């Protein structure tokens, strides 16, 4: 993935961790250069996919890692522990490895952090592992001085096996795009909670392990499922841009087909935040060959985590790397968010 024209600043800004173009530029310009080549065939760092895949015999070992910082640690619908497990399980699933063999769990915690909160996080980690059919097999613990860290940082690494690696760059003109449910729930729930905005409506994070849902979809669609991505930071807009750009296709997104909960829609309008720009932690985007799209959609909708799944877009042969939004009134380009969106304060 190249991010042409993005010049790296001299110092790291918040946007470099926000999952968008700035972060990809940082990886390309600082982290990736000069690394020794991969020792086996597969998908490596330069692909900047959801994880790596290494060929072992006729199968692939999928490996992914993720660090988690979130304020507040406990939020409506989840907490940092559930996020850490689901996030890594989902990254494995997005490469096609829906069976998460095992996870590692590292914690860096600030001196003075309440033991009660740690226990609460652990219980959530345990329950989410159970839900995802995986467990933690090794880990690491560090404590830093008061004020040297904001509460707690978690890191999880996951491994899984797959016969077929599904990439985020596999879209072809004509392929249909599906989302597995409503968009923007996690980002808006956390934002509203964090800013103490007193809004009516049930804004609840969607954080959940998706491996079972994706397994069913892959069983139903087989080779017709050509691309997978979870629209986390930067939301659906970022995920689609990345997929379009890596695949060399344009994407036409039907805004009115994108499922949004009433609470997300209202909060988005009120705060001036586009729900397509904020994170999801329990949703996936699937690129599916047109002839199999309806069947995969029906299969997703049969699953409790995919009840609101919808067909939302189509890949175009031209406009490579661009996402065109059909609003129902007209069309415009959907922009890729830079940095964390902030609520309008005016």
């Amino acid at each position: 993935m190249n991010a042409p024209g993005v010049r790296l600043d001299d110092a790291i800004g918040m946007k470099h961790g926000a999952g968008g173009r700035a972060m990809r530029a940082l990886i390309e310009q600082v982290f990736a250069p000069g690394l020794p080549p991969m020792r086996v065939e597969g998908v490596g760092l330069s692909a900047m996919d959801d994880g790596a895949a290494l060929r072992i015999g006729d199968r692939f070992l999928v490996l992914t890692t993720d660090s988690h910082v979130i304020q507040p640690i406990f939020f409506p619908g989840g907490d940092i522990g559930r996020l850490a497990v689901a996030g890594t399980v989902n990254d494995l699933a997005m490469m096609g490895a829906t069976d998460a063999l095992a996870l590692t769990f590292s914690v860096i915690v600030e001196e003075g952090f309440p033991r009660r909160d740690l226990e609460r996080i652990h219980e959530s980690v345990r329950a989410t592992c159970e839900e995802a059919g995986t467990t933690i097999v090794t880990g690491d613990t560090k404590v830093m001085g008061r004020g040297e860290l904001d509460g707690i940082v978690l890191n999880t690494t996951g491994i899984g096996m797959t016969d077929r690696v599904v990439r985020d760059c596999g879209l072809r003109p004509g392929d249909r795009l599906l989302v597995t449910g409503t968009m923007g729930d996690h980002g808006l729930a956390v934002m509203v909670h964090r800013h103490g905005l007193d809004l009516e409506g049930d804004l609840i994070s969607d954080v959940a392990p998706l491996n079972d849902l994706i397994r069913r979809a892959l069983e139903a669609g087989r080779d017709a499922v050509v691309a997978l991505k979870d629209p986390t930071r930067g939301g659906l807009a970022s995920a689609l841009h990345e997929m379009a750009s890596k695949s060399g296709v344009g994407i036409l997104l039907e805004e009115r087909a994108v499922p949004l909960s009433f609470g997300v829609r209202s909060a988005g309008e009120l705060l001036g935040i586009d729900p397509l720009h904020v994170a999801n932690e329990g949703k996936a985007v699937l690129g599916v060959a047109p002839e199999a799209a309806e069947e995969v959609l029906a299969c997703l909708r049969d699953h409790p985590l995919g009840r609101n799944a919808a067909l939302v877009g189509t890949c175009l042969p031209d406009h490579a790397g661009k996402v065109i939004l059909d609003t129902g009134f007209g069309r415009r380009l959907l922009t890729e968010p830079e940095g964390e969106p902030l609520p309008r304060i005016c």
Partner: protein
Amino acid sequence: MTDQASAELKFRDPSRARELTRALAHVVRSLGRAPVSVMHVCGSHEQAIAKFGLRAAFPRELDVIMGPGCPVCITDVPEVDEAVVLAKQGVRIATYGDMLRVPGTVESLADTRAKGARVDVVYSVAHAVELARQSTDDVVFFASGFETTAVATAAVLLRDPPSNFSVLSAHKYIPPVMEIVAEMPETRVEGFLAAGHAATITGWGIFEPFVERHRLPVVVAGFEPLDILAGLVSLVDVIREGVPRVVNAYPRCVTREGNRAAQEKLWSVFRPVGGRWRGIAHVPNGNLRLKDEWGHFDARKRFDIDLSSLWDHAPATLTQECICGDIMAGISSPSDCRLFGIECVPEKPVGACMVSSEGTCKIWHQYGGHPDRMGVLA
């Protein structure tokens, strides 16, 4: 998804939008010439046009120009400087979030705050009064906005605020700037789309003398996609008829007289005075300042604001290339600006239009710029 369907807004019905789009193309083409140029004078109109992708649906012969409709963007440099100097003098400033990053001669309020000054972001003038009540220190509300927000400021002053509260008014009054734009020699504007929310206060009758003087039609329009499309159909229709008049295309909110009680409040506290709008011109009666009898709540009277301390600094070089003024006057588009999206981005704005959520450049940046109509529609 069912709640989504039930929440479907009446003024966001795409099938009615398509009918209006067809009607708009028909009436524009019946004029038999191009371009037909109209101007809106409201950031919220541009926001809705961009968000819903309406420009791609406008007929190619119709040029909808963005006018000076963002109160934050037209806040002049010396007004920002006054707030910056007050903050540097140790006075606590409360203002809307967008005002924080508007560039002054040397720095913005955000810069001043980063150096330790006390600058609070508030959601409303009432919130600023609350800050004053909780403290014995002086709190100055740096007030921006058109007549709609000025009414809120007036209402607060009329309700006996604490004596440590005062107002640094950068409030602006929209009707006079329409005169300026209409009289600009290079103007191509054949009619105005007036802002619905401002007209709820002033009433649509206020535009009648304007129409009389300039022989240009005015249509008052709301902010939903159908409101804007219907307003444009109506505006081009009046242009075609050739008899300029005022049309109220937002009758569910706007009356001829407007909100009398709000007008009384507005004019009992404020008086219109001439002043510069950033990048535009000196606008006679374009600024709203506190009347003399409200002098005890006027930060300009209460404090000695020494602007000269800032004036030795030369403006930054990039600022000199900024064309915000031309953009707000409707002469240029953000795409004509060399800095747009390159040196001037929302995180590091050069001009005020990239600061505010109602600024044309910020809106274009957020919504992917001027759609390449043919390309995007193909």
